[in-house]
Each structure stands twice: as structure tokens, then as C-alpha cells.
């Protein structure tokens, strides 16, 4: 089992942080805060989104993630790295890690109206946590 895990890890071309830098940081910046009015910040939304199924679906289906050249396993690793390192909310112990299978399941569906879905999710989170 361990050997299998090691083989799977070595199949990844880069580690998760490097993949974040190569595939995400160019626009979302090194700390995930983005650029006001142009690139949304990941910091405040990562943890709240990752707590619900529809939020997790959005995090995978958003075009920058779904259309990246990363494999499903690499994408899951990057999302987990981002949760641990970029989320403003440090109470992430209860959030389950993304898996390759979960990413593959969400990624197969194309998200067309990402802005609207994001706004709806934020409104829902605000209603649930007044």
C-alpha cells in the first residue's frame, strides 16, 4: 500500500505548491488575494465553499480549475494545499480533503455561468451565517 502511494506521488510532475504557482498564482497572486475588481480573492471563500457539496462542486467546476491542464489527482492536491495555506478561515479541520474521484465527478460537468453561481453561493452562506 505504501509503495503504491509512493508510486502515485512520484507520478505527479510537480508538488501541489508548485502547481499552484504555475497554474493559479499568475492571476490569483501568491497569497490568493487576487486583484480587486479583476481577479476574485480565494482567501475568504475557500473554506466556506469547501464545507458544502455545492460549494465544492463550484471550486472544481470554476473554469480556471476545470479547464487547467492538471490531472484530477493533481487538482485535488492543489485544492487541498490551497485550503491549508491560503484560506483565511483556519478552522479547516472538519473539512474533508478533495480526492481524485471527487474532482473527476464534478469536473465532468461544465460550468457556464460561474459568476452567478458564485454570487448565489455567497448569498446562501450569508443567510446561513447571519
Amino acid at each position, binding site marked *: 500500500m505504501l509503495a503504491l502511494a509512493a508510486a502515485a506521488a512520484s507520478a505527479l510532475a*510537480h*508538488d501541489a*505548491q*508548485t502547481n499552484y*504557482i*504555475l*497554474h493559479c*498564482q*499568475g*492571476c490569483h*497572486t501568491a497569497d490568493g488575494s487576487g*486583484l480587486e475588481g*479583476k*481577479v476574485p480573492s480565494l482567501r475568504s471563500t475557500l473554506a466556506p465553499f469547501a464545507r458544502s457539496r455545492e460549494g465544492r462542486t463550484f471550486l472544481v467546476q470554476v473554469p*480556471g480549475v476545470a*479547464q*487547467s*491542464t492538471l490531472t484530477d489527482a493533481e487538482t485535488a492536491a492543489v485544492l487541498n494545499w490551497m485550503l491549508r495555506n491560503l484560506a483565511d478561515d483556519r478552522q479547516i479541520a472538519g473539512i474533508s480533503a478533495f480526492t481524485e474521484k471527487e474532482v473527476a465527478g464534478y469536473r465532468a460537468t461544465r460550468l457556464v455561468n460561474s459568476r452567478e453561481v458564485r454570487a448565489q453561493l455567497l448569498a446562501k452562506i450569508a443567510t446561513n451565517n447571519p
Partner: protein
Amino acid sequence: MKWLDGIAEESTRAVARRSSRRSLLGRLAATLVGASALPLLPIERGAAAEPEKTDPNAPQESGDPTTCEYWRYCGIDGFLCTCCGGSLTSCPPGTLTAAVTWIGTCHNPADGKDYILSYNDCCGKSGCGRCLCNRNEGDTPLYQPFLSNDYNWCVGSKGDIAYHCTVSRVVGLAK
């Protein structure tokens, strides 16, 4: 109107009692020197904060940064700031660095390592026009937009969308 004269005279005399001509000259000189320093302020010095030179992981350097063949330019598409009044990592005076950048990796033949490079566009002045390089390693076509370098990254700059040249900053080692 005599009362107005009185007030003016009294206040002038009060100023004269409190201050000397020498102090006026001193303040005037400070203002002049201060004002002459003002035009220097708006130049962005983002690269000054860059830890590259003191970093033990900094790459070994070889080659000429004013030519397209220089190792850091493997994915570049634009004018080299080293030919445009800037440096390898800092924008020329009068331009602003775009925060949003194209990021890729380049192999450094001097130490045999792969480095992550950030190509930051310098914005706010029209195209420099010198040292155009178009090597594009790792660049994808526009229909694969997230790794395509054919954008004007100056849309992510406060210097508006006018593109001037590009700097190449080492972000770290590709692990």
C-alpha cells in the same frame, strides 16, 4: 480701514518677532529640496523587495540578459526591459509592474536546475520597441487560455493597458 492696517501691522510684527530671516531661508531651502525629490517618488521599486540576490536558492547566472537567448526568457513574448531602461527584474522609470503575470518554468544551464519564472509586464507607456523576443516555451494557444501568454497582462496593472516591456523574476525552484 485703520483697524485693518492695525491688525496687519501687528500680525506682521508678531511674525517678525518670532522668526528670523535665516529661518525663512532654511525653510525655503527645505521646501525646494523636498520638492525636487517628489518626482522620484512615483517610480515603483517592487524589485527592491525581491529577495533574489540574498536567497541561497538564487540561480547561478550566465548569459546576456539583453538577448533573447538568455535562459530566463524561455517563455517570453515581448520587449526586454533590459533594453528599455529597466533591468532584469525592475520596470523602467515611468512604468508600473502588472501584478497579474504569466508564470512558467525555464531550465538554467548554469546550475542545471528548473526555475519558476514570472514574466511581469511593465505598463503605462507605449511599447518600448527594442529587443523583441518571442520564445514561448510552455505557452499554449489562445483556445487553452490559462497557460497562454498572448494576453496583454497590463489589464492587471494600475498603469492602464499600455504595454511597454517585460521583466523576468525568479519565483523559486520548480519542485
